[in-house]
């Protein structure tokens, strides 16, 4: 038995040094997503069913392109942080590390793919 107070035993084991930042990040992005979600529904609802040529023209316009880009970037960063909190709750040790790495890589891959597609439609006129 160690004769130390509970406070001494807990000292140095780590407070939630970055946990509050994660929570605040989720709060800020969730507020943005409350506004972006209805806009994204309207944008994507009009896009589905278009021919490829019409689709390229549609996302070449600023409003659909910006709403889609913002929704996917903010949404996936919200996903990365939210998933991190879930992983911290359900996984330990190596499984936790692997799960965090997979979720972060997946999140950024989705962002990169979506931004590439939107940039291609917005910046480069495609001849098809």
């Amino acid at each position, binding site marked *: 038995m160690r004769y130390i107070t509970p406070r001494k035993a807990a000292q140095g084991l780590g407070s939630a040094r970055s946990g509050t930042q994660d929570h605040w990040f989720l709060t800020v992005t969730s507020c943005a*997503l409350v506004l972006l*979600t209805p806009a994204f529904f309207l944008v994507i609802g009009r896009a589905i069913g278009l021919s490829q040529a019409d689709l390229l023209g549609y996302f070449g316009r600023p409003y659909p392109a910006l709403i889609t880009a913002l929704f996917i970037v903010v949404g996936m960063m919200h*996903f990365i942080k939210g998933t991190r909190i879930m992983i911290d709750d359900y996984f330990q040790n190596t499984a936790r590390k692997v799960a965090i790495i997979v979720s972060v890589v997946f999140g950024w891959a989705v962002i990169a793919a979506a931004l590439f597609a939107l940039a291609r439609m917005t910046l480069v006129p495609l001849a098809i």
Partner: protein
Amino acid sequence: MADVNRGNRPLSPHLQVYRLPMAAVTSILTRITGQALVAGILLLVWWLVAAVSGPRGFAAADWVVRSWIGFIVLTGSAWALWFHTLAGIRHLFYDAGQLLRIEEAERASWAIIIGSVVLTLISVVLFFFG
């Protein structure tokens, strides 16, 4: 003598006979819908990338998006997104110290469930007839 008070004791919740409160059901559904949205975002981003990759790639992605598989994934994602959004708004209220009493949390849970179904129906109707 040991069972004098039989039938009149407070019972501790047992795992197999415990009915989750609605606030607990909607809380865990927030996480589940958040993760399930991966399917919808993958389908839509694949479709966006296919649109700039060429006619054959786009034909494949567009066929999936407009097939019954796409309908199920997108309608499910629409519900998941509305549910997650409403539950997230409730979390903002929680953070502000609101809706924390048991009856309020219960009522807010039903509002989230009913609201998400109604918003999904409106989204689907607007999509097909708008």
